[in-house]
């Protein structure tokens, strides 16, 4: 087996402006925010983003003016309200939006996983989600049954970035025993072309190989794995740490204007040297460790 352990710089270097990226996580769980801050710092722009329930990751990129197009089921800040920067950019007409409902997005990911151009659903008849997107949602008659169906286009992207719990240097990423399963990260991994995973911690392969059924992202699918503790901050990693409520409130406050959002990005993404520097800006490990929750897993 070949080591796939990289620095964030090396792992993300292939991502150029104009790329399409599937971003993992759902609501305030596991958005790959450290990677997102890297993209902003390195001025990667004109991105097409494919997401499930996106929050901080898409809003940070929208604040940076880096999003050209969005395709997903939700973009907001969960119990912190609407996504202020995403909302402003969409209202300005600066982001092209294609909304997809949950069965549609799942079918799109499954199609990409299977190497199919599309899969059918029966959900969106008569909905503006379908009527406003004739390129990616098309009605046809099932050649077997004759039933009318809607084909939805496969969710193909140039890159997929996920933030996971724990992995080994070969890219095998595992679930803890107690987690929140309300996401599609496993499906996004299966649908990926080039998969970059950041994880809270790298552990020896021997620890992973003892319980292979807990590996939800097989290293076989992974191009690069990077160790980034608190890599989802200010959002949460279920079973590791909670969302940083005070930071999120300050972010929402700052994001009421373009200038405020830009000052936030200058401080936390553009001027921070790297992720360690970001943690230092938050007050160091002692400050973020206050967010830690009780762990129930097999790696300790």
């Amino acid at each position, binding site marked *: 087996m070949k080591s796939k352990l990289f620095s964030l710089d090396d792992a993300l270097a292939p991502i150029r402006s104009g790329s399409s990226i599937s971003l993992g996580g*759902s*609501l*305030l*769980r596991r958005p790959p925010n450290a990677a997102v801050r890297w993209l902003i710092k390195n001025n990667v722009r004109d991105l097409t983003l494919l997401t*499930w*329930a996106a929050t901080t990751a898409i809003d940070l990129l929208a604040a940076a003016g880096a999003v050209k197009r969005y395709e*997903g*089921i*939700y*973009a*907001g800040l*969960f*119990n*912190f*309200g*609407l996504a202020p920067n995403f*909302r402003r950019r*969409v*209202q*300005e*007409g600066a982001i*092209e*939006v294609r*909304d*997809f*409902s*949950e*069965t549609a997005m*799942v079918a799109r990911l*499954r199609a990409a996983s299977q190497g199919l151009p599309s899969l059918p*659903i*029966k*959900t*969106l*008849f*008569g*909905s*503006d*989600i379908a*009527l*406003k997107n004739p390129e990616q949602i098309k*009605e046809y008659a099932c050649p077997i049954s004759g039933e*009318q169906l809607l084909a939805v286009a496969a969710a193909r992207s140039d890159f997929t970035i996920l933030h996971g719990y724990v992995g080994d240097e070969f890219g095998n990423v595992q679930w803890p025993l*107690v987690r*929140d*399963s*309300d*996401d*599609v*990260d*496993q*499906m996004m991994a299966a649908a990926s072309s080039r998969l970059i995973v950041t994880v809270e911690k790298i552990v020896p392969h021997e620890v992973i190989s003892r319980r292979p059924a807990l590996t939800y992202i097989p290293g076989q699918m992974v191009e690069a794995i990077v160790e980034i503790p608190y890599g989802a901050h200010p959002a*949460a990693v*279920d*079973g590791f740490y*909670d*969302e940083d*409520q005070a930071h999120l409130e300050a972010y929402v406050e700052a994001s009421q204007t373009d200038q405020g959002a830009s000052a936030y990005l200058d401080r936390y993404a553009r001027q921070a040297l790297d992720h360690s520097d970001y943690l230092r800006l938050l007050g160091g490990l002692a400050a973020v460790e206050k967010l830690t*929750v*009780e762990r129930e897993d097999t790696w300790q």
Partner: protein
Amino acid sequence: MNAHHTPNELLTSQVARVILDDDLAFVGVGTNGRAFTLAVGIPLAGLRLAQMLHAPGASGYWGNLLEPDLSSFPEHLKQDSLTRWKAAASPVDVGYKCDMLARRGFDVSFDSGAQIDRYGNLNITAIGDYARPKVRLVGCLAQPEHFAFVRRPIVMMDLDRRSFVEKVDFVTSVGHARDGRTRQEWGLGEGGPHVVITNKAILDFDTPDRSMRLRSLHDGVSLEEVLDSMGFRPTIPDYIAITPAPTSRELQLIRQEIDPDRVLLKV
């Protein structure tokens, strides 16, 4: 308003009465403030109330949890409270839930949005032009699935002229008809919103063309007040009922067992 119960207690008892024994009810997890009370608080309290009274076999799907334990609720819902929530099952990813929806595994769902029209079309996506909206909202989540596949979706919205409109700006979820075509003509099966539970009245779609009808007024609310709060005129029946008040048993369960700290029915 009846001095013996709060408006939220009335809505909770109304939700409970829509839930039948053995129903599987889909409840969302998001938002805050009044939107949380409408989308999560009242639905969970109503489901629990139904379980304790006439529907012991009713269960919920909340987050990605099947049959979540509804016996207590923390004051602040952070990720770790969701992570450790007790439930019968937490399927490996959300695709399972999507499949259950598409195969009509759910009896009830709870839905709210920024706009709803006469035929129950719901908008949670954008106000104004889709490409350059006046207000961009959250998108769609699984709300189109709820109206497409769930047997009796329950809409929870406060009555407001800006929300109850003649024509929604964007049809996220298809109700009973749009642009002169019925949902069946559009290609959907049975379903669509079953009842609309508001802060002033209960509405339903029990009309020949499945457009909105006033079912009952909450005690103390006038017909005029309801019509003033709507951007279209629903069908008004000859005899307008008063929404039945919660029973003393319902109130006792809500106050002492289900939500003693007023977390679910806060605002």
